[in-house]
């Protein structure tokens, strides 16, 4: 089964971060796509549609709606924590890489962080495609053993008495962190709340971004 691929001996992978990877991979993927199209295995228009979906429709703004609603409505929060897949589907977010979702509530005593040490499992319908760092070796290696060190990389320090729980997505269960609602937001609208729910706060590597603080990643 294990065999050299045709490209293995044609290209040097010694330094994949150089511009040479760009042109090499560009040519390689172009060749692959035109071959599969010529064979009739793929429809290039479907590829455009797939890309458009994850560039414009699906992203962390979906998850932010879920979190804001859970902050506003105690019944929805209860439903989300009991059956996140159904609660999230009620907002229209369903499908690939989100067939089975579990929501994890942060509290003053508990902080949750999600990782996939084996690959890149991530709740696409609510967060979109994972960022590069989530798929990278530093995060996959360290999150399960040194989550506070990882949080420090994100500029987050938690009190020593907070229990840090790490969830390794080894199966098809996808995890969404429900961050704590920041104090002082009691009279805010759902839209205002959604605007402070960062992607990282739903992975557990960040906290909601209050106005005046710079969001690490706008949702």
């Amino acid at each position, binding site marked *: 089964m294990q065999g050299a691929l045709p490209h293995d001996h044609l290209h040097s992978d010694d330094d994949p971060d150089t511009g040479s990877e760009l042109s090499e991979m560009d040519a390689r993927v172009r060749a692959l796509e035109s071959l599969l199209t010529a064979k*009739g295995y793929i429809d290039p228009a479907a590829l455009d549609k797939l890309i458009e979906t994850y560039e414009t429709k699906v992203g962390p703004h979906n998850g932010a709606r879920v979190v804001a609603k859970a902050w506003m409505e105690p019944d929805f929060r209860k439903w989300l924590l009991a059956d996140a897949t159904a609660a999230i589907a009620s907002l229209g977010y369903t499908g690939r890489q989100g067939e*089975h979702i579990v929501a994890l509530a942060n509290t003053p005593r508990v902080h949750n962080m999600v990782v996939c040490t084996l690959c890149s499992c991530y709740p696409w319908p609510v967060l979109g*495609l994972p960022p590069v760092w989530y798929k990278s*070796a*530093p995060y996959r290696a360290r999150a*399960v*053993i040194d989550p506070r060190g990882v949080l420090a990389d994100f500029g987050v320090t938690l009190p020593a008495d907070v229990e840090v729980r790490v969830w390794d997505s080894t199966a098809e269960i996808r995890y969404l962190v429900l961050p704590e609602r920041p104090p002082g937001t009691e009279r805010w609208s759902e839209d205002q709340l959604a605007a402070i729910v960062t992607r990282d706060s739903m992975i557990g590597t960040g906290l909601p971004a209050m106005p005046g603080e710079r969001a690490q990643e706008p949702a």
Partner: protein
Amino acid sequence: MNGVHDMGGAMNFGPVVPERNEPPFHHEWERRAFAVTLAMGATGQWNLDQSRDARERTPPARYLASSYYRIWIAGLERLLLERRLVTRDELLDGQARTAPLPIANVLRADRVATVLARGASTQRERAAPALHRVGDVVRTRVVHPPTHTRLPRYCRGKRGTIVRVHGAHVFPDANARGQGEAPQWLYTVRFDAGELWGPDTTADAVFVDCWEPYLEASR
């Protein structure tokens, strides 16, 4: 397989480096690589576990030196070659030289939204009742399968507590080998971080999703 993809607990990869305002893709070839992989996956010529397995069979040094979507492309080419859907020569220049194999399900553009929204649940019926219940203490088996598995090395032979029963799900170890879905009960297991890492951790608990064959009863 004890591959370098199984990164949990590995060290010396450096800090996690988040990118501000990160786009879903960084190059045009990444867009096409993502979409072509999903479109070929939709043809049903292989299953999700086989596609993960194909990526994990990237040789270790190359895996670590490769960007994420390069690993995807390497995995896709491997699958296409193994199933004789393309030849090595064809991959090199993208010119079709052999007749295509019949493919039943070509993903068309007008089906993309439906297919993505539907997803593919991995939950299945299983006649045998679950062996474990919430609260049970279990131990993960000490195993080193040479083929695909979702039991990370860092949590083999470790004692934990069942915190959730997810029903029966497709068993990746069998599915990746083409042995059918062989559904097994799936549990979330809580491990005290000290059980996994001794004193050398900043985590309090790590949760891992484990299929029943990964577990044995413990006291």
